[in-house]
């Protein structure tokens, strides 16, 4: 059950569009900074496959210039 956080940088002039595009993806929670035109994204997905799909979708958005992964955690008990 992976949890991750990202910093999202929009393509020029696409900040609002980026927020709209990302908000429509399930498992995404956005913390935007409208002054600096960047956003922190926290993702919560049920399994590794969903997480991979979400990452692929994020990277494919035209409104997103760069998605930088900061934190990732996947549950596992020894």
């Amino acid at each position, binding site marked *: 059950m992976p949890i991750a*956080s990202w910093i999202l940088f929009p393509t020029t002039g696409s900040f609002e569009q980026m927020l709209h595009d990302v908000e429509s993806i399930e498992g995404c929670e956005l913390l935007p900074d409208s002054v600096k035109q960047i956003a922190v994204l926290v993702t919560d997905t049920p399994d590794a496959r969903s997480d991979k799909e979400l990452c692929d979708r994020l990277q494919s958005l035209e409104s997103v210039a760069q998605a930088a992964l900061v934190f990732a*955690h996947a549950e596992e008990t020894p």
Partner: protein
Amino acid sequence: MNPTDTTRRSFLKQMAAAAAISTVAELVPGAAFAGEAKEKASDGGLHWQKAPCRFCGTGCGLLVAVEHGVAVAVKGDPASPVNRGLACVKGFHAILALYGKDRLTNALVRKNGKLVPVPLKEALDLVAAKMKEISAKYGKDSIAMYGSGQWTIPDGYVASKFMKGCLGNNNLEGNARLCMSSAVTGFMTSFGMDEPMGCYDDFDHADIFVTWGNNPAEMHPVLFSRMLERKQNSANVKLIDLSTRTTRSSHASDKHIIFKPNTDLALANGIAHEILARGWQNNDFLAKHVTVRKGKTNIGYGLVDKENFKDEPVATTLDEYREFLKDYTPEKVEKISGVSAANIRYLASLYGDPSKRVMSLWCMGMNQHVRGTWINNLVYNLHLLTGKIATPGNSPFSLTGQPSACGTVREVGTLAHRLPHGVVTNEEDRKHAAEIWQVPVERINPKPGLHTVEIFRGLDRGDIRFLWVQVTNPMVTMPKLKRYREATQKEDRFIVVSDVYPTPTTEIADVVLPSAMWIEREGLFGNSERRTQHWNELVPPPGDAVADGWQLIEVAHRLGFTKEFPWTRENYNEKAYEEYCKHQAGKKHGMAPIADLKKNPGLPWPYVNGKSTKWRYHGKFDPAASGNTWDFYGNADHRANLWLRPYEPAAESPDKEFPFWLCTGRVLEHWHSGSMTRRIPVLHRAVPHAYVELNPADAKRMGVVDGDKVRLTTRRGTMVFPASVDGRGVPEPGQVFVPFFDEKLLINELTLDAHCPISKQPDYKKCSVRVEKA
């Protein structure tokens, strides 16, 4: 998904957001998130409450946040003078230790060879019945209890009162015997009172830090960061690492000096020789505040059952001390220790320079030592020769490995010879305890009980028939483990284990009692610098789990000791602590009242007139000391003892058959036997199993590369470990190191139970071993 999972995921998401927002703050100056987001990222509107860390003896203050009865976040407490908001990797993950999926939540009783769940009441009834039955059949001294420095102060106090005041039985020990008793006997023989004279403020004053066989970068990382901070802020500060192995501490030090195992005794005497030869001693201090003493030599290694060594100290003179030190010229010590004469002179110049304040620090390297008491004495000698003691920055400082090794085991009477104040052999001390306990003084046995190794040997011989283990894991930590594990399985032995997770010790139990852990109950710990810290119950314990001290009281009640424990489950922590304070009342060891502890991030004792004493034995700082100078009031002559103690070799040294030294110890990520930290996924993944560190030259000669299997054989057995070559620790050629946290690779199957005959503390750092590629 249960509520715990939801809250835990919320917490993880908050942490994820916090990490990203912190990164943005670095990358994009001026970035500002909405107030809600910032709050969510910073603390999620959480309510934080204080608790000392559950792990090592540093005693870091933590803040824990709770939501819906679950601990969801932890951080260092900025108000704590110990760690000033910092925490190490274990502290930052401390709350996860509460939520391993195999927590013990039910009592278990062995039926037809299997541990099966039973109601807690049934298990406690059985424990009480067995204590009664075995005591009647084999005598009261066939009962023993074994706890640890993880006992809270109230729980250890209850154990002490129950065993010594109610049952008249002194077979009560804590696993501090395995890690701190040489420090205790070192303090007692040098100063007549236990525990450091200084405090952590010394880190802010010292110019020179000398670590003796100690790796604080991994074992006490927050304190090591204070040394590094001091160094960063002052150009003349130096860190000197004296050790037998290269560690992370060595790399961060200004000078790293390697000595051969057990030769720290010679090294300390060599430094003392040079101080006197150069006239760097403080003659005024020596004349007014020091008595020179000597004791027996060739004192053995405690390898024989029931060996009962007693030292016979006699006073001697400084002239005789000078004569004795002629065997320890730098050149002679170089031959014994491998440390160059130039480095011995360099070390003497640091201790001997009157303009430099010196802090010596040690932990297991000096304590787990067949001459542990002696090497403690010899390092004190260096501070006594130069008068660098008990003033800010001049501080011989014995660090502890457990959260309440000092506060509980060393102070409330859970060692076989101790009472909460004083010792069982002293009639006045027995009367003092009996009066507070309101028990007949005759009930307190004047004969010390069995020390830890002898309790387990007694279990093997049949002298001990009932053993109750709480808050420790001896089936991982005892040396020469095979003998003691097999002892527990002998006929007519009954073992009770109170713990929070299944361990190799619960595996050998007849009854397992589920314990409430850390913030699942109220408690108090006492750390390395005499600081007492209180915390409240912050989350409910799972299932039938209940505090260890309350388990003891339940059994005591069943045995008829209701008058001695007229407390409830809700108030016993406070009542037991208040009663314990009566034992220590006075300027020398007065404890802070619980009301003051609740308001503060810990208060060191002696606590006199609402104020903690930072430096003992000096009139400027210590209300118990007379005059405006040093007063070592622990000794009858008000002087500290400077000891003549020779170098003697280890119990077992490498030979043709077993040509390597074997040393054991800890790693940063795992605490003690690993039963908690191995259940914290991030720590487990960081160091998932034990390994054997080899010197690269030895590895090359044997054709071993990192990860290869290596067979270790001692006179106790054979085991195979993966090799670590050029890892975080690098032993010297002819030496290997193995961490002991891994219950699947129990290195203590191979270690020896030789111990210091004075402190009875085993030496886990030195035995001989054969090393082969497997």
